[in-house]
């Protein structure tokens, strides 16, 4: 039931909000976001109690991993909704609200279904729902970004479809025909008997396909454009959770492939792409010119780190990767929201166009600094701990060279990020720049940072057990 509400609320809202406009729309927007968040909480509670929740005859199913993602999506969408919608000349909020909720719906559907075919449809749906949001400004740049986003992600996700088809092929080949052949639960049950080579082949397609969505290099090329041109709340959602939805999809299949063909195969691929992503992102972060693009590249870097965690494997590696997904979602969404404010105040997304942030916008600048520190993996924020976990898994599993190389690259990325942050934060600002008034605007970001601090120095009770549980779900 809670699962149905969870999916129904945003879907219904998308329809409803297409009709309503003005102040009621904003109220409805916030209400629906709150309902979604509450439903997410309820789902998570049920999952903790019962292990999994199902609806619609098993078509919708949430287990620990789904619940983790659902809570994350709800959190980040709450954060994004707390930010006032972008007021752009050509596009009224009328377009923004429904698409926003449609976008959230598709992401929730992707992580809340048991059917990998439906999951594919939902992932494709996230592209379609968000591509318009990217082009909300209807400027030349946002048009170009949206075009590339649509083209590249469609191609990529279509490749993932080939992978799905191949897995399905292996599945029905094994099983004969069955109604639930594309159900993940069925796949996992049958996995040990699937033909290894076919499943491996399928995984390559899935990796390239969903990797495109997750922003793994070299399929990441749409990401900096789309993330930087989208309005801040959308960027927050895209960078914060959309990428993780791609990773989620990969994870589901990884479990199947691991059981069919042994874990080395997927681990090798994930490590290769993870390392490549970190390397490429580090090179771009070394000398960024646009801060939203910088944040986007940093997302690539962190998704790379997550992939490393999955590739290193083991309970620690997978648990660390999951935690990293969550930590990154919080830090990155806060940063994108703040960058929206900065862009509004300075009128420029160029790093060179922003100086003296800390002096001119003390609240925004201070939060930006803290969130950047969190993003760079400094304590007391959670990314530090999750990175330590991931690398610990790396050394544990004997992948020294990869762990060492990525550590080195992370130092390079750190240097670049910090230099850019310094350029923005210090110096003298134009007198026209003023901060968003009131401390209330700092509350959502403050809460997110507080959560990050919790995962960084004092884990809430149950977190360790939850991560362990999810990692066991996925592990062999």
């Amino acid at each position: 039931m809670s699962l149905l509400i969870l999916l129904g609320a945003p879907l219904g809202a998308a329809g409803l909000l297409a009709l309503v406009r003005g102040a009621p729309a904003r109220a409805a927007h916030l209400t629906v976001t709150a309902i979604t968040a509450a439903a997410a909480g309820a789902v998570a509670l049920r999952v903790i109690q019962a292990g999994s929740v199902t609806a619609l005859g098993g078509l919708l199913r949430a287990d620990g991993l789904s619940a983790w993602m659902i809570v994350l999506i709800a959190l980040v969408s709450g954060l994004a909704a707390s930010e006032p919608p972008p007021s752009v000349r050509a596009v009224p909020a009328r377009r923004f609200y429904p698409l926003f909720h449609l976008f959230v719906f598709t992401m929730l559907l992707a992580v809340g279904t048991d059917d990998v075919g439906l999951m594919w449809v939902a992932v494709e749906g996230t592209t379609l729902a968000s591509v318009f949001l990217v082009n909300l400004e209807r400027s030349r740049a946002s048009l170009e970004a949206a075009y590339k986003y649509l083209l590249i992600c469609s191609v990529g996700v279509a490749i993932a479809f080939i992978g799905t088809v191949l897995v399905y092929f292996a599945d029905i080949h094994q099983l004969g025909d069955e109604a639930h052949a594309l159900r993940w639960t069925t796949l996992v049950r049958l996995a040990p008997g699937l033909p290894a080579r076919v499943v491996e082949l399928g995984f390559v397609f899935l990796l390239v396909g969903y990797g495109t969505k997750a922003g793994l290099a070299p399929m990441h090329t749409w990401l900096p454009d789309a993330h930087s041109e989208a309005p801040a709340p959308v960027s927050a959602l895209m960078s914060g959770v959309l990428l993780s939805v791609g990773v989620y999809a990969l994870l589901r299949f990884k479990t199947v492939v691991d059981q069919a063909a042994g874990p080395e195969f997927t681990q090798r691929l994930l490590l290769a792409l993870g390392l490549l992503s970190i390397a490429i992102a580090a090179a771009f972060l070394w000398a960024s010119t646009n801060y939203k693009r910088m944040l986007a590249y940093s997302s690539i870097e962190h998704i790379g780190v997550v992939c490393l965690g999955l590739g290193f494997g083991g309970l620690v590696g997978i648990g660390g990767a999951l935690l990293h997904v969550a930590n990154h979602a919080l830090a990155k969404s806060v940063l994108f929201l703040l960058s929206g404010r900065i862009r509004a105040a300075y009128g420029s997304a160029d790093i060179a166009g922003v100086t003296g942030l800390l002096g001119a916008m003390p609240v925004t600048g201070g939060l930006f600094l803290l969130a950047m520190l969190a993003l760079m993996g400094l304590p007391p924020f959670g990314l530090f701990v999750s990175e330590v976990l991931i690398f610990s898994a790396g050394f544990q599993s004997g992948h020294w060279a990869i762990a060492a190389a990525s550590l080195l690259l992370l130092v390079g990325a750190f240097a670049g990020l910090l230099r850019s942050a310094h350029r923005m934060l210090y110096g003298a600002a134009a007198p026209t720049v003023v901060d968003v008034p009131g401390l209330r605007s700092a509350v959502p970001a403050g809460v997110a940072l507080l959560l990050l601090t919790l995962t960084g120095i004092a884990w809430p009770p149950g977190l360790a057990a939850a991560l362990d549980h999810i990692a066991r779900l996925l592990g062999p």
Partner: protein
Amino acid sequence: MTAVVYTLAAIVGLIVGAVGVSGMLGVGLAWRCPALLPLGGLSLVLDPLAGFFLALVGFASVPASLDGLGRARSERRGRLAYLLFVAAMALVPLAANALTFLLAWELMSLASYVLVVQGGRARESIRAAWVYAVMTHAGLACLLAGMLLLGAWTGSFDVGAWRAAASALAPSARDLAWTLLALGFAVKAGVIPLHVWLPLAHPAAPSHVSALMSGVMIKLGVYGLVRVSLDWLGEGPAWWGAAILLAGAVSAVVGVLSAIVDRDLKRVLAFSSIENAGIILIGLGAGVLYQAAGLPALAVLGVTAALYHALNHAAFKTLLFLGAGAVVHATGTRDMDALGGLIKRMPWTAACFLTGAAAIAALPPLNGFVSEWLTLQALLQNLLIEQPAVNLVFALGIAALALTGGLTVACFVRAFGITFLAVPRQEAAARAHDPATPSRLAMTILALSCLALGVGATAVVPAIARVGSHLLGTPTALPLGDALTLKVSGEFASLSMPAVAAALALAGLGVLAGLAAAGGRGRVRLYETWSCGRMLQTPRMEYSATAFANPFKRVFDFFYRPVEHIDIAAHPGSRLFVQRIEYANPTRSLFDDWLYRPLLHTVHRGARVVQRLQSGSANLYLAYILLALLALLVFA
């Protein structure tokens, strides 16, 4: 508010110091909380070595906080970061597993980074903060790799488990772990050539923070080196000790050579911190070498000398930074060539700074001398190891230590003399005044402790030696003479600071009395400086800091590689009439030119090449996907 924070910091310092001293005396504490974090959670253990470094933190942070209190009214930025800094430094020695250690370590770095960044918000302090943060992060990466490797090999992230399992590890594994960890700690300790951040970051921070960074934080790098070389990884091979000793020797000499030519007062102090870290490492290296050679008594001596010098350096470097802070605060400049004559305007600061300078120059009967003497005693007995290669390493250490000692005297004659003596070179220096009472109190405490640590060495050194004995697991305490005399290795060498101090005092009184008796206290005529009959003395005629350093630039020009810029503007009418001459003789950093700049250049070029990937062409992007697909299909 600000005052409250600094008072709180001082109280924290007192508590930390008390806990530390009780730890040195053998009180052991352990606190674990595995529920808080993964990989074993938080784990704190107090043992004598941790106690010593805690005491060090407490000892330096009390006066530094007092100084902060003295400036609470004018300087409010960064007070919370300061509190965090002190607290994190106190956590580092206590941390007993990898994650706790890394957390505390990185919090300490983060807090100090924030303090550096807020020090001036000027361009240079931002740049300094960047270099600092990046170097620290690189160091952290090394530490992380080393600790996680150890964790992987021993199956635990607890240092106790490392200790137990270390001897069973393969030698190459231990060497790798040691190298990584030592590199990470060496960054913090400011070991050449990983020191580049130090002369940038220390001056940029507010002075009470620089005092703690130089006085305590780099010691925590030393702490890590002690742990990793003698404790966590068990007994190491000789090359660890040799590496530490040589690194220390190079750091000491290069540090002081850099200090001696710099015009920025705080940079001079920062470079001198590198030098002193080097001296500490020379002692530590000797200890490790002796331990490897199976001479535990001498090993304890080396470690004791190192720890004692760490303590002493904390005393005088904190003092000097506070003094420099008072100068900078009063004059608004750190350039020594703009200062001068402060001794008459800031008598209190001058007296305290002079004490610190004399102590760091190792003049008896102050503390710096005793620890350098102790270090030398540890080095001089190396013939007991019968390996010419090791002896040669020791000989180099001895020579480096001696050269350093001499150059330090020169360096601090220059620092004190140019800054405080003669007449002000610029207007700002002429209007200077002593700082507020809390700051004066802080400096006085430190100056007195420099004296007390020197004259009272016979009380302090045995206590530190007990820490060393406990660390190395030697059963009996090292015999170190009686309350009056420090005796090293039986009859090898002895030193009685009280006697020397008394003799000096009595001799001084005797000379005065003799003068009075000889009726020599004749009339005093005040007049302007004679200077071989030169007329009209102006500040422009004073010897400048640059000039003072000139002999060293000449002698060590292979190191400094100075360049000369002369800019003469002649009168338009005749070139014989010179209107203005500008002369600069800057030195060039070997490490910037040959290590860091090429490195940055390479990284930059590499990044440029990679950045061409994002060319904007959608077709190309699609091609990447196609190629990635084909490549993965072929290779997988």
